[in-house]
């Protein structure tokens, strides 16, 4: 299994890319801005931890999926994969390595953003309630689930789209719609919504990845 080797490799490429630098630094900054805007407009502030999780899932998921789709389309069209595909590895290794490396980077960015939220909430209120921490945990679970679905949609669209433009449009409109699927258990107020969210997101993400791998396996380069 060469996925591990490619995963570490791709991680090296992604973590210092401009988009990832935006995620590492930009997300906490944007969350901070949201917090001050909400505090000054309504007079009472939403816990920063929750804001951070919301920002991460909406902006981070979109960016991650666009990044994945654009990278894959670009590399596919520039024929970068030819030199990988003539080596003893499975085609799926390439896609899985890309998915997991971007997902890992965005997941770490999410943790950083939520952790920043917790630190700021603690420093402003002097204490952290269990409710805030539970909310933060749930928000993080939802965020990571949505990002997983967005990333897998990015991979599928990347494999199937002929051009970067088509891919970007499909990801921004289609990928974003799909990535809200994990919110359904929460919207329906189901018991154990977080667990349902994770199970649902995993199922959808696996389904999308299997579709992407099937198309990629059939592709004639």
């Amino acid at each position, binding site marked *: 299994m060469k996925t591990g080797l490619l995963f570490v490799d791709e991680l090296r490429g992604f973590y210092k890319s401009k988009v990832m630098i935006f995620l590492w630094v930009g997300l906490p900054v944007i969350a901070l801005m949201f917090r001050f805007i909400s505090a000054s407009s309504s007079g009472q502030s939403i816990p920063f931890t929750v804001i951070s999780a919301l920002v991460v899932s909406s902006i981070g998921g979109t960016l991650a999926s666009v990044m994945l789709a654009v990278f894959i389309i670009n590399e596919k069209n520039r024929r970068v994969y030819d*030199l990988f595909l*003539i080596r*003893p590895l499975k085609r799926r290794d390439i896609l899985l390595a890309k998915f997991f490396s971007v997902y890992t980077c965005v997941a770490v960015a999410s943790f950083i953003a939520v952790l920043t939220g917790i630190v700021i909430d603690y420093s402003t209120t002097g204490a952290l309630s269990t409710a805030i921490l539970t909310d933060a945990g749930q928000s993080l679970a939802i965020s990571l689930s949505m990002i997983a679905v967005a990333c897998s949609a990015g991979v599928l669209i990347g494999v199937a789209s002929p051009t970067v433009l088509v891919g970007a449009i499909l990801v921004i409109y289609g990928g974003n719609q799909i990535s809200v699927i994990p919110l359904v258990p929460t919207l329906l107020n189901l018991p154990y919504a977080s667990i349902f969210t994770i199970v649902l997101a995993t199922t959808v993400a696996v389904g999308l990845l299997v579709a992407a791998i099937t198309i990629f396996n059939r592709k*004639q*380069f």
Partner: protein
Amino acid sequence: MTSNSSNDNEFVTIRNLEKKFGGFYALNDVSFTIKEGEIFGYIGPNGAGKTTTMKILVGLITDFQGAVSIGDFQVPKRKDEIHKLLGYLPQSVAFQEWRTVNQTLTTFGRLSGLSDTKVEERIPEILSLLGLADARNKKVSHLSGGMIQKVGLAQALLHEPKFLVLDEPLGGLDPLSRYQFKDIVLKLAKKGTTVLFSSHILSDVQDVADRIGIISHGKIKQVGTLNELKISLVSQKMVQVLLSFASDKWQEFGAIRNVIGVEQPSPGRILVRLKAGSDEDQAVNDIVQNVVKLGIRVRGVSVIEPSLDEIYFNYVSEAENR
């Protein structure tokens, strides 16, 4: 037509290969073999089917008709085994731009099954062989076209493959690099590496290839050593007429008795192909009389042995005219 050598040490076998893109035949009943340790030059005009053949061999195109095998392994069924034997340089080589040359080669070396120690050992070796030692830590995106081509060659040679497939490997290389490349290929073949390479630069093919395959419009026109190809054409015989001034009147030579074709491979140089078995002295005499009649000024008329260029022109133009 095809004169395939049947030898017991055939390493690559292609039989009745067909590939269609929509209704268009990219390859039509292509058959040839490559012997172990042989350098096989694959030439043909743009769109003739060279790259498609190579992509089928390396497993990038898996949807085709016919039988293809490398060593004891059937393509594409035994892809995993074949990929361990293979080094490939595509026509337009591209890498992930965030990588350095070292990272690129390390990844490809590891994916090809080399150990970390072996990769560390091979990278400086191969980079100095190709004159790229100083570029080891440079980002691929900062390299010139020729240097990228060399990195492409480096990744193909890194794991010391038994079979090298090189698609237009000399494109973008300066004359010195081309010379070095040909030298490397010749040395590899001496060590037993089988090489298939395509090129538009016929003199380069002539310099290194043990045997040559000419493909046009998806069909193999001829396969053989340079001498075999010459003999196949010598039976037809050729007269070269060098004009003092460019003139279109040379086309009239086509009407001369026993002439089966006239071409102008370069301005002022006319090649007149004669019917097999015809008397070349008589033909030269007829051509000279025609030259006088047409009022063309000529620098010389001689019977010639065909070069690879002429052989190529002969088979390719034959296919064009059909």
